[in-house]
């Protein structure tokens, strides 16, 4: 690999832009280098010396990548509006207590899933990642509620108590769990190859929603209550959840509009950690300061994990998504 190619590769590594924009940026810089090298060679410089001179006059790859990111990475107001839509939809479902109606819930999540799938196929705009988190949610919910037959079977095998689930049931669940895991892992890895903060954006609503689902499903006779429609016990956290999702919408809009990566990361971390801890505190009730701090620390770890994944993928030298 020539010095210039290696240099452009370094710029590319730090760009964190969508694949199409990345290709265009690198293509423009490559054309610049070819012309510069040609001029320098005409001026009497040897190949190696010309490459060195061209690279030196271009600037540090990390700095150039950062400036490029700031120039390209700012989404339009339309991107911001699209990006915060799923948060707003879920906030509205909570605010109106309509999440308990399966048909309305499906009507809300089906378009989210379809748009997400289409957007993944077309290439990844930044707003897609906030949609992906919600598109994965139905699968995670079904997984959560499907664990019972598995637990029952494990309990039978280990302790000999109860009755195991039928084999066909377990085989179906195993297939479903594997599919869900594959989907979550591939979406996460694909996003992490581009930029870890996009993974954080994608996962942002999930921890609080998981805590909420766990709390709601602990309600006595949850399914019967759900079927009866308006049941006050199920609605007690709706206000907190609506507020939390609306805050996520605001953070996502900010994420789309600011140029600097540090500000993007700051926006989602602040809302994910502080907003998430407050929402959980409201759901669980009486966590106390230490409990609140512990939850905040867990959320921080969860949202920073993608950074470790991104670093690992970079270290492994896996090619960036084409």
């Amino acid at each position, binding site marked *: 690999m020539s010095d210039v190619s290696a240099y452009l590769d370094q710029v590319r590594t730090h760009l964190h832009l969508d694949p199409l924009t990345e290709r265009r940026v690198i293509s423009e810089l490559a*054309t610049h280098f070819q012309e*510069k090298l040609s001029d320098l060679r005409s001026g009497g410089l040897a190949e190696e010396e010309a490459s060195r001179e061209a690279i030196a*006059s271009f600037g540090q790859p990390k700095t150039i990548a950062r400036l490029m990111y700031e120039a390209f990475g700012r989404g339009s107001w339309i991107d911001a509006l699209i990006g915060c839509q799923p948060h707003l939809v879920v906030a509205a479902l909570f605010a109106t207590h309509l999440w308990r109606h399966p048909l309305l819930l499906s009507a809300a999540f089906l378009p989210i899933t379809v748009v997400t799938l289409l957007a993944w196929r077309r290439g990844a705009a930044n707003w897609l990642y906030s949609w992906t988190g919600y598109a994965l949610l139905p699968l995670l919910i079904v997984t959560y509620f499907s664990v019972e037959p598995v637990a029952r079977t494990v309990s039978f095998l280990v302790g000999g108590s109860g009755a195991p689930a039928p084999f066909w049931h377990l085989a179906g669940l195993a297939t479903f769990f594997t599919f869900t895991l594959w989907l979550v892992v591939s979406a996460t890895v694909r996003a992490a190859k581009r930029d870890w903060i996009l993974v954080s954006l994608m996962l942002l609503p999930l921890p609080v929603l998981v805590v909420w689902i766990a709390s709601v499903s602990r309600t006595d006779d949850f399914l019967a209550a759900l079927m009866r429609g308006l049941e006050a016990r199920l609605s007690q956290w709706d206000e907190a959840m609506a507020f939390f999702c609306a805050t996520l919408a605001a953070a996502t809009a900010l994420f789309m509009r600011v140029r600097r990566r540090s500000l993007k990361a700051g926006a989602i971390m602040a809302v994910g950690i502080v907003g998430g801890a407050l929402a959980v505190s409201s759901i669980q009730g009486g966590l106390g300061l230490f409990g609140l701090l512990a939850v905040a620390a867990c959320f921080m770890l969860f949202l920073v994990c993608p950074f470790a994944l991104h670093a690992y993928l970079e270290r492994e030298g896996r090619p960036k998504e084409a």
Partner: protein
Amino acid sequence: MPGNIPGYDSDLLRGNTDSLLLFLINAHGQTYGYRLIKEIEERSGGFFRFREGTVYPALRKLENDGLIHGEWKKLPNGQERRYYTMTDGGRAFLQKKLDMWESFSSAMALVLKPVER
């Protein structure tokens, strides 16, 4: 972001990069990044020297702001090059900047002339 060239404050050039780029794009009708960089250096007698990589983000920002329009064109050798042209908004913005610069430099010249004792 220009490099640290002795002789002027690099912030001064940084603050006026947009005007220089817009002026040259307007003058040529259609031009590209490398030519802009070369021309600024040549016209200034080598006084203005950019960190060349910083010109492209600056061009992109001008494009985002609707002041210029970028378009890919295929060269005879099969390579692609991005050409930039002015928009009407860009022309109006440039005129405003040039007027501002003229007033500013005239005022500076008036203030900086030797004081009569």
